[in-house]
C-alpha cells in the first residue's frame, strides 16, 4: 500500500466553525427525531390513560377530567424535565412535551376522528397543557430545585389545567333543552353525534360522594389535582433519575 494512503490521525474538525456546524446539525437532527418520537409516545400515553376524557366535549366534566388529566399526564414531562435539566440545563422539556402532545392530538382528531369517522371538530377538540408546561419549566429554571419545582411547579400544573381549558369548554356548558331534558350544549352534541361504542351510561360525570360533600366539586377536584400532580411529578422525576444512572444501564437498554 502506498505510503500516502496510510491511515494517520486527523482532527475531527478543520476549524471551530466546522465543529459548531456539526454540533448544530446534530442538535437539529436530534430535535426533529424527538419531536416525532414524543408526539407518538406522549400521545399514545395520553390516549391510554386519559382516553375518552380528551376525545369528547361531553366527557370534559368538572370532577374527573380536571383531576385525572393533569395528574397522569405530568409523569412523562417530569421524567424528561429531569433528564433535560440534569444533563443539559435545558428548561423546556415540559413545554416541549405538551406542545408535541397537542400537535399529535390535533393531527389525530383531524385525520382520524374527523376525516375518517366524520365527527365534527367542535365535538372532538383536545385539551391543552401548554400553559401548565410553561409554568413547570420556568419554575425549574428560576429555582433550580426539584423539590421546589415539585411543590410550586407541579402544584401549578394541577391547578392551572382547569382555568386553561375552561376558556375552551365554557361555551359548551351553556344549558339547552333537548325534548324536555336539561342538557349542556356538550351533552346535546354527544346525544346528536352518534357513538355506537360510547353509550350515555359510560360517562363518569360528577357522580359520587364528592357531589354530596360540596355544592361545587371543582374546588375539591382542583385541590386533589394539585396534590396528586406533586406526587406523580416526584415519581416521574425519579424515573428520569433512574434513566440517567449508569448502574441502571440495563434499564436504558430495555
Amino acid at each position, binding site marked *: 500500500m502506498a505510503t500516502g494512503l496510510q491511515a494517520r490521525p486527523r482532527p475531527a474538525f478543520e476549524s471551530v466553525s466546522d465543529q459548531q456546524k456539526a454540533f448544530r446539525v446534530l442538535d437539529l437532527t436530534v430535535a426533529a427525531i424527538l419531536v416525532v418520537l414524543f408526539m407518538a409516545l406522549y400521545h399514545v400515553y395520553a390516549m391510554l390513560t386519559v382516553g375518552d376524557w380528551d376525545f369528547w366535549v361531553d366527557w370534559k366534566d368538572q370532577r374527573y377530567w380536571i383531576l385525572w388529566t393533569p395528574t397522569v399526564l405530568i409523569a412523562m414531562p417530569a421524567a424528561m424535565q429531569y433528564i433535560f435539566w440534569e444533563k443539559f440545563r435545558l428548561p423546556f422539556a415540559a413545554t416541549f412535551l405538551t406542545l408535541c402532545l397537542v400537535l399529535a392530538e390535533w393531527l389525530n382528531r383531524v385525520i382520524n376522528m374527523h376525516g375518517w369517522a366524520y365527527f365534527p371538530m367542535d365535538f372532538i377538540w383536545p385539551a391543552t397543557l401548554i400553559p401548565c408546561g410553561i409554568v413547570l419549566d420556568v419554575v425549574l429554571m428560576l429555582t433550580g430545585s426539584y423539590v421546589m419545582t415539585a411543590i410550586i411547579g407541579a402544584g401549578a400544573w394541577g391547578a392551572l389545567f382547569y382555568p386553561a381549558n375552561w376558556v375552551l369548554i*365554557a361555551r359548551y356548558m351553556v*344549558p339547552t333543552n333537548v325534548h324536555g331534558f336539561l342538557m349542556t350544549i356538550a351533552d346535546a352534541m354527544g346525544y346528536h353525534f352518534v357513538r355506537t361504542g360510547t353509550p350515555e351510561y359510560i360517562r363518569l360525570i360528577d357522580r359520587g360522594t364528592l357531589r354530596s360533600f360540596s355544592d361545587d366539586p371543582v374546588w375539591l377536584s382542583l385541590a386533589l389535582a394539585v396534590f396528586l400532580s406533586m406526587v406523580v411529578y416526584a415519581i416521574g422525576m425519579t424515573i428520569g433519575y433512574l434513566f440517567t444512572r449508569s448502574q441502571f444501564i440495563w434499564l436504558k437498554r430495555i
Partner: protein
Amino acid sequence: MTIEISAEHSQKKIGLIKALALSAIIAIGLLVAMWPRLAAAHGERSEPPFLRMSTAQFYDTQWSAKTIKVNEELIVTGRFRIVENWSFAIAPPRLAFLNVGVPGPVMVREASYIDGVNGAASTSLEPGRDYEYKIVLRGRIPGSYHVHPMLDVLDTGALLGPGNWITVEGNAASFTDPVTTLLGNKIDLAHYGLGAVMTWHAIWIVLAIGWLLYWIRKPLLIPRYEAVMHGEGESLVSPTDRLVGIGLLVVTLLILGAGVVATRAMYPVTIALQSAWMRIPPLPKQPDTISIKADRVVYYVPGRTVELWAKVTNHGDKPVRLGEFTTAGLRFMNATVSKVGADFPPELVVPDGLVVEPNEPIQPGETRQLHILMTSEVWETDRLTALVHDPSSRMGGLFMFFDPEGNRSIVEFDSEMLPIFRRNDTQTASASGS
C-alpha cells in the same frame, strides 16, 4: 482484473435489481390483496349467537324511508322483548341505553323514545317485558349505511336489532344542526365554538414555540452536556434567560387570568354536564294465552334445519296458528299464515322458512304436539349455529301466533339445542325448554 471486477459488479447490480423487482411485486401484491374494503355495516354476524338469541329480541322494526337527503329525517320504530331467560353468561340489563347502529355520525340522532318517554338517558329494563321504541335520525354524510336499532347494556355491550340499508343523498356541506340555548341563542351544533377553541390553542402553541426557539437558537446538546459534566451548569442559564422566563411566566398567568375573566363575562350561565338514570315502565303485559313446552330441539347441520317437537297449549278463547318465528332479527315465516311487508330487508326473511305439522288452527283449550321445521342457509350465513361453541348451547326466539282476526300472541321460546353433525344420525335425546 478491471474487466472481472466490472463483470462481477454488474452481476451484483442485476441481482440487486431482481431482488428489488421481486420485493416490489410482493409489496404491490400484498397491498392489492390486503387493501381495506369499505366497512359500512356493523359485524352483527360476528356477535356470539347467545348475545343475539338470549338477550333482546327486536320485532316490528320499521324504517320510514329507504333514501333520505342530507338534513331529512329517518324514523326507526319497533319493539323489543327483554327475554325472560336472559343469558347467564352476561350481566342483566339493569342499565341500558337506546342507541342506533350506524357507522359513526353519518346521521345525527334528533330524538329517541322508549314507550313514549325521552330516551336520551339510560334506563333499566325488565326481563320478560316488551318495550316500544322510536329513533328519529337526520341525514348528515351522503352514502349508503346499514342502520340498526341498538341497545347498549352496561357490562354486556351492544345488542343489535335488524339492519336495513339506507341511502343518504345530497351535499354534506349543507348539513346544519340548529339548537336554541336556554338563553335564547341559536347555534349550530355542527360548527359551534371551534373558532374560539382554535384561537386559544394557537395562542398557547405560539407561546410554546417562542419559548422553544429561544433555547433552540443556542447550542443545545454537546456543548451544554460538556459544560454540565465539567461543573459549569450554572453558567448555562444567564440572567437574561431568567428575565425572559419571568416574562413568559407573567404573560402566561396574565393570559390565563384575562381569559377566565372574559369567559365568565361571556358565559355567565353554565351548568355541569347532565346525566340521569330513568325508570321507564314496560308495555302492559300480554295475557299468557299460549304456552309452549319443547320436547326436543335439534339442529340438523347437513340440512341447515332446526327441527323441534313441542307441545303447544292454547289457553285463549280463539283458535290460533303459528305464523312466525323471529330471532336475532331473522324472520322465519309460515307463508300460509303470515307474510312480511315488502319494505322489510329481504335478506332477513325466510318466506317459507317455518313449516308446521300439523298446520291447522289450535283450538281454545287444546294442547297439540307440533313438529316444526325451520330450514334455511341463514342459520349458517348469520352464524347462529356457532352457538355450539357458546358456553350454553341454547336457542331462543319469539313464536308468533295469529287468530283468525289477525291478532297476534307472542310467546317467548328458549331451549337446549342439540346438533346433528352426520347425515344419517338420529337424535334420541330430549331437550327441555319452554
